[in-house]
């Protein structure tokens, strides 16, 4: 089985937003492997170990994203494909262009039987690139997946995906397919020290975005303006007996905030 895992390097969740003319200032930011992508990497490694074959990690971005790829390689992926763009160019790309680039690299290096991704990147929370990659490759896709069960012949899969209200959809699909992983699908392993050492030797192939015939000119949307959320005025703090507290809350919700 030939598996591709799409990963993104994102700012750490504790990041404080420093805004410049082009959006978030990236200098000095701490970056991590997008937490949802860890589930995709783990799923890829487990399937590769079970079914044999290879797990290829793919990422788009400036040189710094290779750190996130090394994390995936240290966890157990076999090789990597890095689609390189400059920090400035990256800020001008939209989901459409990123997905088109990833899809065209996958086409060049494929075909892949299974493409895995995290369901969402925690920086722009768009939940878009995985589905777009699948569409560019004309493949079916299943997102927000909490369970992936491969058939015995590894030609089809049964999946569960989380939807609103705590419900789950059960889906059946024939491979090749793109699967966007959600929390709960597995428990991602930590990279071991020998894993980290080995990862340094693993091959990461470099492809320039331009070599795929793409640039920020292909973006369908541009980012025009960036702003911080308005500060909230300080609230009221009540003290007293439980009954007094409840009365205060309810009275303010009714008479001041007018939401009850």
């Amino acid at each position, binding site marked *: 089985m030939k598996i591709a895992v799409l990963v993104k390097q994102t700012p750490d969740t504790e990041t404080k937003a420093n805004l410049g003319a082009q959006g978030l200032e990236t200098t000095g930011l701490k970056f991590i492997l997008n937490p949802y992508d860890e589930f995709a990497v783990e799923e890829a490694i487990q399937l590769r170990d079970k079914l044999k074959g290879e797990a290829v990690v793919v990422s788009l971005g400036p040189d710094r994203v290779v750190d996130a790829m090394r994390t995936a390689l240290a966890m157990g992926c076999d090789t990597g494909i890095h689609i390189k763009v400059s920090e400035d160019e990256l800020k001008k790309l939209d989901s459409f262009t990123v997905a088109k680039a990833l899809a065209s690299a996958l086409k060049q290096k494929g075909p892949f039987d299974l493409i895995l991704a995290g369901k969402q990147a925690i920086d722009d*929370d768009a*939940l878009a690139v995985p589905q777009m990659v699948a*569409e560019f490759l004309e493949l079916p896709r299943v997102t927000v997946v909490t369970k992936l069960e491969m058939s015995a012949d590894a030609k089809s899969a049964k999946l569960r995906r989380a939807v*609103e209200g705590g419900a789950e959809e*059960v889906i059946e699909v024939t491979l090749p397919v793109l699967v966007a992983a959600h929390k709960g699908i597995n428990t991602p392993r930590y990279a071991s020290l020998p894993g980290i050492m080995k990862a340094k030797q693993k091959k990461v192939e470099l492809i320039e975005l331009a070599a795929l015939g793409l640039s920020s000119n292909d973006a369908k949307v541009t*980012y025009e303006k*960036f702003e911080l959320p308005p500060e909230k005025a300080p609230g009221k703090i009540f003290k007293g007996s439980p009954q007094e507290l409840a009365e205060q809350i309810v009275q303010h919700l009714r008479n001041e905030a007018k939401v009850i």
Partner: protein
Amino acid sequence: MTKALVLVELKNGNAKKSSLESIHALASQGVEVDAIAFGPDTTGNKDKVAKAVGGQGAKKLLIADSADLKFYQPDIFTATIAATFKAGGYQILAGSASSLVKDLFPTIAVRLDAGLAPDCVAIKIEGASLSAKRPMLAGKYFATLKFKAFPAVVSLRPNVLTIGADSGQSAQIVATPPSGSIRAKTLEVSGAAGNSRPDLTEAERIMSAGRAIKEAANFKIIEECADVIGAAVGASRAAVDAGMAPHAMQVGQTGKTVNPNLYIACGISGAIQHLAGMKTSKVIVAINTDPEAPIFQKADYGAVGDLFAVVPELTKEFKKLLSAG
């Protein structure tokens, strides 16, 4: 004139309010809006739905129904919407950023060779240009996106935009044959039955509890209070990780992003990742024993006290108030 197609979702046979928000957002800016809805549920309730969408300014209600569409089938939805969009000469596809739309719209955007602005909190149409504002990095900042050209695919965060006064008009019902063939087939939906509380992401009121609730059974006191005010029930990750609540109830960066009119946080400290999921709530109430808890800095109303004592009193007060009218 700019034309938009809005995907309308149903719950219990009614058009979801969040879908109506999308219609109003566009119709109120002079866009000609048609609505499209899928499935047997839609056919069975078509007059009701036509009135609801028409009241917000939709001219037509396109209904795509077939036996296949008892469940959400992304391949059929994609093919049908793309074909309808092209044939109808639309420029904008819009809908509420529900779990269905978040899954569906990116695929349709590529099929239409269009850009995507997902989960937006504001949308502005000026002539042939569309811009939309959306939260980035879990709401730490906002970016305004501008489409270079139509077609544009946009989803709007539920509960942010309002609906308008009902115009009394009804939309013209038009049957639209579904197209496309199923590759990834939804066989069944499990797990949601029996829950009459609203969905977290669409709820106008939410009551959440954190680690302080100690065990799953104690959620009962939160639920009792929530039911009095028609609120959904949420949880912090600490409560979810400790097995006191299912992940579907988690609010925060790695859970649901919610945007209710009222959010009541009980025994939740207010970690940045929790705030990321709920800080845009219009009114925030915090109940916490620790006067230094960070949640109090975000709360409009804070009560320093034990949730096990305050919440039952709160239930009583809400009952008193609401029975008095």
